[in-house]
Every structure is written in C-alpha cells, then in structure tokens.
C-alpha cells in the first residue's frame, strides 16, 4: 500500500469538498474492494475520503411505493431488514448472499454499484427493478448508471446518496457462483413491476445490463417457455478459466428460467 491522506467527513457536502481539494482522491464506503486494491498497489489515491461517518447516507425506508436504501447501508443490514424482506424479499436474499459475513458487514450498496465490478450482484437488481440512483447532484436511471467494466455515470466528485427501488409485483435473483471466489459467474434478476417484466444480467458481460432479448421472449409474462430459443451474442460474453463465453451465454438463459420460475 502506498501512502495516502485519510479524510473522515460527517456530511455529503464535506465529502464533496474534500474530494474537490484532493489531488487524486477516492471515496471509500465499506472498503471491501478499495482497500484490497490499494494493498495490491493497483490503486494509489492521494486522499481517501471515508464516508463511514456520514449518517445521512444510511437507512432503509418505504415511501410512495418505493424502497429507498441509503448508499452506506451494509449488505447485512439490507439482508436483515424487515422492511426489505417485506417490500422486495428477493433483494434481501441477494444482499444476504453477497461475499462472506465480513464483506456483508462492511460492504455497502453504494460502494458496490459505484465500483461496478462486472461480477457484483447488486447491479442486476438495480437494473431489473428499474431503480433510480440518487446522487449528490442528480437522479440517474439504472440503465444509464452502469456504463462499462468498473465504469459508471458518476463524476469524480459525485457521491451515491441512495437507491430508490419501485416495489415489484414479483422478483427473484438467481446467481451462478464462481466456485472459488463465489462472485457471480452469471447473475440474473427478474422483476415484474407495473405489468412489465424486466431482466437484469450481471457477471456475463463487461457491463451489467438489461437482458432485452430475454425480456422480448418473456413478453411481459412470467413464463419462461420462450427462453431456450433466445440467441444471445456469445462474442460479447466474458470468458475465463471457470466459464467460457459459450457456457456463460447458456447459463444466462438457465438462470433466467430459474428466476422466472422463482417469481411465481
């Protein structure tokens, strides 16, 4: 790890100000990705701005048919929340299966989506549920938020404040785990909201995305009958020692079918 300045802040405004003053600053939420990356010397920010003390970024509430989760809410808190379990049980289960207990007790929703690891779980839910990411500057629709591998629409001094999930009629997440890391080789979140069925796919490609071909095959219904016939672009799939592109494309369909069935 290289030397850096540690900044602890107690408000979003102070965090933004600290970032603007820093030469090459980074926000840190739970630190479950940021700190290992720094330890491996793959990142060397001049300033690390710790959002852990920003109370306004934490919390869970249901308002106007939306579940609102503060960016600094840990995975463990989401998993254990009675409100989340009642409003979107699939989201509570997803959070409860991220990483291991240490990761879940430190890692946060905001940290996960701002980092946008292509094998992270949350992005699939954010996309499929048609969520809105509220930042320190604006509201960003889920589909515009994830722009590429480890890339998002966030600007350098922009902080995720909360994510607002419209309450679905039905939802389910199916994850095919990497046998070593237990990250998602493929994760598919299916949600039916306001009569529309959406599919969010993570792990399969460089960027979490809506499964538009899969959605077309579902045609707004929770009926997986047409999924086998969908042709997915194998050349866009990730491939590694654990799963080739061809196998990943196949797994996307299998996980979609299972998620649709779990919705019923």
């Amino acid at each position: 790890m290289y030397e850096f300045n540690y900044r602890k802040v107690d408000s979003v405004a102070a965090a933004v100000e600290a970032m603007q003053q820093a030469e090459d600053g980074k926000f840190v939420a739970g630190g479950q990705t940021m700190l290992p990356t720094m330890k491996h010397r793959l990142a060397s920010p001049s300033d690390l701005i710790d959002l852990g003390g920003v109370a306004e970024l934490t919390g869970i509430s249901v308002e106007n048919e939306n579940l609102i989760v503060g960016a600094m809410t840990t995975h463990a808190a989401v998993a254990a929340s009675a409100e989340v379990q009642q409003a979107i049980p699939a989201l509570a289960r997803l959070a409860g299966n991220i990483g291991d207990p240490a990761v879940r007790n430190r890692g946060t929703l905001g940290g996960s989506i701002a980092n946008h690891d292509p094998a992270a779980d949350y992005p699939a839910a954010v996309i499929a549920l048609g969520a809105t990411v509220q930042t320190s500057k604006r509201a960003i629709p889920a589909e515009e938020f994830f722009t590429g591998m480890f890339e998002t629409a966030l600007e350098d001094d922009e902080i995720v404040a909360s994510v607002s999930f419209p309450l679905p009629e039905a939802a389910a997440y199916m994850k095919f785990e990497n046998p070593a890391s237990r990250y998602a080789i493929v994760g598919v979140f299916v949600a039916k909201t306001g009569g529309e069925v959406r599919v969010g796919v993570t792990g399969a490609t460089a960027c979490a995305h809506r499964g538009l071909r899969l959605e077309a095959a579902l045609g707004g219904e929770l009926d997986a009958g047409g999924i086998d016939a969908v042709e997915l672009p194998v050349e866009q799939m990730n491939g590694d020692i654990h799963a080739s592109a061809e196998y990943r494309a196949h797994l996307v369909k299998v996980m979609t079918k299972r998620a649709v069935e779990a919705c019923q």
Partner: protein
Amino acid sequence: MAIARACDKLIAKGKKIAAHALEAAEGDIEFADGNFSVAGTDKAMNIAEVAFTAYVPHSYPEGVEPGFDENAFFDPTNFSFPAGTHICEVEVDPDTGVVEVVKYSAVDDFGRLINPMIVEGQVHGGIAHGVGQALLEGCSYDSEGQLITASYMDYAMPRADNLPSFDIDYAPTNPPDNPLGVKGCGEAGAIGAPPAVINAISNALGVRHIDMPATPETVWRAAQQAAAVSA
C-alpha cells in the same frame, strides 16, 4: 513400530531404576498404566518419578547411564497394505453441470486403530482433499506461463458446503509383518475420493471418461455430448 520398540527399551531401563529406588529385585518390577510397581506390594513409582530419578540420580543403580531417552529402528520384513472401498453418490444438474456430492461412504482397513479420533480426522481431511481434486482444484497457466490460479479468488479449494457428512467405518485385518497390527491411513481419503467421485459422475452421465477437475462447464459439456450421442 519404532516408537513401540523405543518404549520397550525405556520400560526395561525404568525397571532397573525403579528396582534400585524401591529396593526390590528388577525381576519383581511390573510396568502398567504408567506405573512401575513391586509385584505383590503397594510400592510404586510413576513414570514421571522414574524419569526425574534418571536425570537427578541421587539414588541410582550402578552401571546404568543417567538419562531417559532411547532410539529404535524398525525395518519391516514386508509392507503392510491398507485397503478400502469408497462409494460416492452425486447429483448432476444437467442444465448447469453442477455436481453435488450427496452421500459418501468409506470403509477402510487400517489395521488396529491406536487413536480412532485422529484416524477419523485423517479420513475426513483426505476425502475433502480428494473431492477437491475431483471437482474443484486445478492449476491454470496463461500462454506466457503466468499462473492464473495464484489466489483463492481463482483457485477453488473445497469448503464445508462442497461436502456432505461422511459415513465412515473400518474393517481391520491384522498385518502379519507389523507387531503392532497398524497400517497407514493418512492418504486413504485422498486416494479413494477422486475415482469414487469421477466414477459416480461418469455413471450419472453414461460416459466412460471425464477429466479432473470435473468443473460445472466440463460436466455440462460431457452431458451435452452424451445427450447428442444417445439422441
């Protein structure tokens, strides 16, 4: 076996020391349960007292060297041969290729078990190692020779949720060339598990061969081929 022989030497020496200290004939000293006692009396020294006397010899037999340690060497006239049967039941998800080990039974002949708890632990660890080899563990290198499974983020170790509870039993036979009646047990699980797991997968898919580690993708491809052949 060498340990047993060294212990025999120590007991013989301890009898000399105890006989002198207890003012008895060496032939009257009996050793049992860690105690050197004079036969037919309540006079006794425990092994700690004998060892102390051996190193602080204020009352010590003439002609016996101080100290209480011995070496022994055992060269068996023939090997002993542990053997066993390991049986594994797997469930294969043909859509994903995921293999779950749902039942695992092993009966081994390790001869006489000196410490059954340690033997059971050895078998458990060995089976976990063998299941890991069969299903999960593999070293991969890229085209430039760089190891790409250099951390546990990429190298899949077997974990508790990869394994069922094991059903373990023993069928000991007596090896004629080992006076203690013991055989090796350390590698039994690691030897038995890979063929048991792979044979179970092959049987489930109706194929004759599958490479280790039988990862989900490997098994999925084998299942696809088997389905294509039988179609």
